[in-house]
């Protein structure tokens, strides 16, 4: 379909003949569309829906009969235990500390993850030099490709007690070295800084793509009317960004009970001294179940996290739609 033949109005992008067709008839166009979507549909079915039967683990006490296959063992051999597997999570009084950590970090990440990349995307879009713009974009995007394990070694090079760069600087200045991996106080700031540094470049690209697509004539009109840059941002850029901001916000709220395992486990080098300030639900479950390999407990925790995430997405979507009916995700 050429662009010339596409109707300009939103919602009428399909030709009249297509819209009026008898839905029961299967046309050549349908074959094409099904062909295009098939790999994605199969991918989703195979990797997202079929494995969902694993939820059963959350309500089973896993046991094995060596003469039987995995499915038989899961559905027949393993006993139902109801909500027994969920009990484990709340037996440990420290769980509230871990839930608190997960929520606090995620809320901060959520706020910074929206304001910081948007501000930077807008700033970069006002750069006159396209070369400098590209350099900035690439520089901010690069950390996205580093794994947390690699970053953890960089961080250690800075924070090592006896060989770290920072402690060497402190020593040279006549101070006392700090045992970074035993002191909880600086770690919330370190983790927030690192997460922002690693992720904002990627988020920024999403907002940059939107900003680049805005109708430039609106900005020209605003300039002719004497609008300052701040007024242009406030009056044009931010309102136009609202739909994408809402979608990003709703999607991120869904992950508020989960955490980036690499950040909280590897970067802190799993230091027990930092546990109180840096252990999140995922890290706790990993550490607590590392020895037992208890699938029931870990599945129960994941199910709980995802159920809460799903409910939060629905609530946030409803709230967003209440404020602005056009900005919801669904």
């Amino acid at each position: 379909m050429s662009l010339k033949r596409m109707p300009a109005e939103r919602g009428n992008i399909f030709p009249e003949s297509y819209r009026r067709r008898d839905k029961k008839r299967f046309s050549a166009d349908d074959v094409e569309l099904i062909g295009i979507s098939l790999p994605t549909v199969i991918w989703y079915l195979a990797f997202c829906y079929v494995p969902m039967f694993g939820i059963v683990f959350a309500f089973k006490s896993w046991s094995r009969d060596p003469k039987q296959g995995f499915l038989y063992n899961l559905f027949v051999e393993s006993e139902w235990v109801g909500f027994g597997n969920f009990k484990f999570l709340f037996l440990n009084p420290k769980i509230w500390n871990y839930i608190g950590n997960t929520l606090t970090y995620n809320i901060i990440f959520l706020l910074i993850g929206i304001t910081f990349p948007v501000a930077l995307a807008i700033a970069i879009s006002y750069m006159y030099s396209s070369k400098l713009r590209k350099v900035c974009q690439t520089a901010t995007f690069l950390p996205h490709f580093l794994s947390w394990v690699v970053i953890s070694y960089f961080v250690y090079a800075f924070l090592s007690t006896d060989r770290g760069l920072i402690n060497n600087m402190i020593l040279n200045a006549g101070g006392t070295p700090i045992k970074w991996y035993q002191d909880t106080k600086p770690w919330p700031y370190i983790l927030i800084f690192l997460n922002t540094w690693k992720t904002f470049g990627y988020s920024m690209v999403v907002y940059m793509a939107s900003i680049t697509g805005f109708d430039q004539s609106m900005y020209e009109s605003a300039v002719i009317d004497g609008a300052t840059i701040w007024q242009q941002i406030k009056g044009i850029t931010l309102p136009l960004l609202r739909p994408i901001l809402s979608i990003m916000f709703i999607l991120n709220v869904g992950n508020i009970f989960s955490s980036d395992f690499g950040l909280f486990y590897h970067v802190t080098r799993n230091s027990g001294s930092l546990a109180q300030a840096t252990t999140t639900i995922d890290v706790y479950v990993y550490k607590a179940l590392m020895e037992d390999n208890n699938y029931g407990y870990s599945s129960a925790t994941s199910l709980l996290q995802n159920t809460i995430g799903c409910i939060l997405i629905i609530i946030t979507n409803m709230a967003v739609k209440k404020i602005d009916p056009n900005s919801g995700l669904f």
Partner: protein
Amino acid sequence: MKKLVSLALVLAMLLCVGVSVASAEEPIKLIWWTSTMGDAPIDAQKVVDAANKISAEKIGVVVDLQFKTSDQLVMDFDAGEYYDMVFTCDWYNDFDTNAAEGLYYNVEPLLKEHAPALYDAVDPWWKAAQLEVTMEDEDGEEIVVDGIWGIPALKDLGIQVFFRLNQDFYEGELGWTIPETMEFADLEKYLKAWKDVHPNEYPLHMTKSGLSGFWQEHQEIVGDYLVIPYKTDEPTKVVPIWENPYYVEKVRCLHKWYELGYINPDAAINESLPMELRTPVRSGTAWNGYKGWSDPSVYGFNVKLSQYIGPYMSRASMQGALHAINAAATEEKAIAALKYFELLYTDTAFRDLLAYGIEGEHFTYASNGTVIRTALGSENYSFDTYVTGPVISASVRSANETVLGDPNQWDVVYEQYEKAVIAPVSGFRYDKGDYADLCTVLQDIYMEKYSELCTGTLDPDEYFATVSAKMYELGLQDVIDDVQAQLDEYMASK
């Protein structure tokens, strides 16, 4: 035409006979899962191919040897992947737990008939693999089977933990004599001597796991926190770990040494201790006469061992290495596995092949018949020998032509074991039952700062006071009472 048809028929018949003969002589193939800490050795397949040629000819059995990490093994087990033999022990793919679940084959009825030489070679240590397992018979009735559920790969069976000291420095430069045994606290003067000469180095450099084997003053009964000390007047009483004075004394020493700067300050988060780090004191579990740590080209100096723990014996220590057969395997495969182990126990050349690789390529024989690994062997085919079979039937390893091992070292070591006292609770396994989730939580609480504890980073007295208060509040006493009740019942039944 008739001739052609006849010829074709004759050829076809010959072919069929050929195929049937070939299939009759086809060796039995065993899928064998074994342990590795990381990747499989690079030359593993090459060595296994060479071994298969010999075993196919001698006993009609070949193996598909697969190296798996602990995580991979658990996943493959649970996914229902098929195997015939698997490496199992006290610390990897837990033998007692899996055998009690009925995952392994009872080899006891087959042993004397099909592998008598194997039976004799392992005797009297079959008890390491002996267990009473509750099973269902053909009518669905519960029965208790007292069987042998694995083949012990005999190696050192007792617990002896040694300091590995820089002999060149302490004996060569300082003129001291490193004793055969010492107390843990005695190490302080060695640490101080090194620190005095090398003020910017840490003589007791360690990883977050602490000194290898230093905790083995007790049998762990539940997790890492409920134990029975080896040295105690009440050898069947379960106590929290902080009530074992020998362990507590060690962690107190470590904390003192940490404060004195003998231990690296980031030990609690340190993941590795490479050989290139010429730390003058290391620790390890071994046996008298062990030369595996004595090669100066690897360690940078001559090493002398000094024992500071043991010798102790328990069921756990006897279960250092076993190979079990899948309960789902056929009798034919079970017999093949027994015959394969019989060959490993009785044919030293075959055993050396799987243990050290190909002669001339991966190792050479020293003048006294012991084995010296080549550089290629150390690089491409090096792992803990017991993962491919018994250690006592392989040739003893020497560090090099000047640091030779005693070819008869196992006779000496096993003579000691015959007189050794085995901890009385050997064979007891705690059934957590309704306390399973509480035990997991208690373990998490105890382990939260374990790395800091075992590296001396924190004050152990403060730590034990804090965690014990938390653990008792959550119900530790209930777990202790339950374990003790089960243990008393077990001891009464014995």
